[in-house]
């Protein structure tokens, strides 16, 4: 399923003196099967952008086309379209409300009007996706679980609606490294095995480096940069000027290039740096000075 955003502008408190432009003429296309990382400061417009994609916010101007259909067009079933795009908010565990994990996950499918058997199947599928054992957790109260487990229940609640596109707003915020790794591994599997298109808002460049096939960098309501992680992280100056970091490996790559070492400019994975340093070590074992002075 493809999403096309055309000249999307959004103003908050429109018509009042407090009116602020959150999105300013944003145009983007998201292809089927992409894993997109959205980066930007708080207030750069990234949360506003993702809330438009399933129709929770209406554009002040511009269009959102889902498989060519205008999300807010006349004669379009907005509700049906919206259901194909799952949205996981920040700290989604705060939305849990049912007595049991299974019931909470079933909330979405129930709203879709599915049959009991189908709902049960969806719940099992979703719990499997987030690595929660059905027999162990289904009948537990979600409020008895750990923070990381609660978050996975909340994500399962969205996955149970079987969206073609999954959008997550900072899915790892507040989690410890173990909890974060579980979520990231789970998203990686969803993308690779289920071919779900994923959009993830995150502040963590390392998470982005690990997962994203394309990055969108937002700044002041506009798309400031877009490209593969390799392309984006290679432009370290531009990232820094936007107040954003690049992964440590990319920083090292730049530091070594400045010292005169012969390295490609666009390395950003630690493994790549390791290979290149080992290669330099071998070729430079004669004690050749890399800086031609």
């Amino acid at each position: 399923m493809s999403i096309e955003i055309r000249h999307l502008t959004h103003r908050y408190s429109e018509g009042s003196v407090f009116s602020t432009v959150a999105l300013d003429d944003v145009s983007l296309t998201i292809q089927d099967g992409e894993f997109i990382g959205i980066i930007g400061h708080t207030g750069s417009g990234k949360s506003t952008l993702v809330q438009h994609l399933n129709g929770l916010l209406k554009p002040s101007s511009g269009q959102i086309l889902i498989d060519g259909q205008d999300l807010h067009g006349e004669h379009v079933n907005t509700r049906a379209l919206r259901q194909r795009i799952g949205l996981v908010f920040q700290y989604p565990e705060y939305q849990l409300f049912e007595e049991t994990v299974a019931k909470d996950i079933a909330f979405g499918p129930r709203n879709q009007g599915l049959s009991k058997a189908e709902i049960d199947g969806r719940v099992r599928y979703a719990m499997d996706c987030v690595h929660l054992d059905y027999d162990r957790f289904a009948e537990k109260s979600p409020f008895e679980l750990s923070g990381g487990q609660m978050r996975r229940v909340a994500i399962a609640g969205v996955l149970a609606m079987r969206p073609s596109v999954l959008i997550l707003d900072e899915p790892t915020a507040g989690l410890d490294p173990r909890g974060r790794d579980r979520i990231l591994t789970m998203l990686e599997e969803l993308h690779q095995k289920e071919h779900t298109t994923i959009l993830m808002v995150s502040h963590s460049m390392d998470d982005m480096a690990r997962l994203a096939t394309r990055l969108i960098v937002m700044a002041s309501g506009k798309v400031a940069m877009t490209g593969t992680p390799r392309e984006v992280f290679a432009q370290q100056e531009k990232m820094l000027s936007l107040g954003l970091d690049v992964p440590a490996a990319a920083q090292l790559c730049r530091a070594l290039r400045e010292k005169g070492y012969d390295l490609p400019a666009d390395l950003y994975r630690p493994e790549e740096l390791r290979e290149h340093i080992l290669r330099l070590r071998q070729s430079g074992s004669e004690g050749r000075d890399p800086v031609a002075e």
Partner: protein
Amino acid sequence: MLNDITMGQYYPVDSPVHRLDPRIKLVDTLLFIVAVFLAQSFVGYLLLFGFLYGVTRLARVPFRMLLKGLKPLRIILILTFLLNLFFTPGEKTLVAFWGIRITLEALRQAAFYSLRLAFLVAGTSLLTLTTSPVALSDGIELLLSPLKKIHFPVHELAMMMTIALRFIPTLLEETDKIMKAQMARGADFESGNLIARAKAMVPLLVPLFVSAFRKAGDLAMAMESRCYHGGEGRTRMRVLKLTRNDGLALGAMLLLIALVVLEGVLL
């Protein structure tokens, strides 16, 4: 928008009325209510209206803001008017239809009672329009402080008001977030009959309560770690001091009462 709700009716401008001590404004409001009940004629009401209008001008609050305060009460106002109009006995019949007789006395009484109600509401609106909720809760605490002697929990009451004021915007933000999250799961808060809608609120209310309780627990711990142990031995940074204007405001209100009483006696 969220900010509007927090501030309630407060109309944030700087004026001599806004700067008055909240205690004096509270006392003045009470005295105004007394004056409303003391007024026995439309001439007295004219005095009240003049006073209200004058203070509103002095407070640099548009007069329509006062009228806006009456809007939520319009049904009660109309009801008061109609009930008095139909059911007050009297001599001079104005009109009669379908067995109902409307008399001059009834018309007078209907107008009188609904105006009285309007004055009461407008007077208290003027208080909340010119006094921020924080100042108001401070004023109430200080005015009630003599009650501490009979072990009335004045400090606790004021602390509760402050915390409520502090958390209203936070909880509103949270409500908005949870609502959106459930809508993303296909929840429908808008359609259906009353029962369906009430049921649809469960996915909103449960998380909201859970969050409010968590906040309460966290806050209690944070307050304790900052040495909070009730009102005993506590000092305040903000101390209210009465000024000359406060004296004038009290004097003006007493004058109004005197005039209203005098008018009642003379006419």
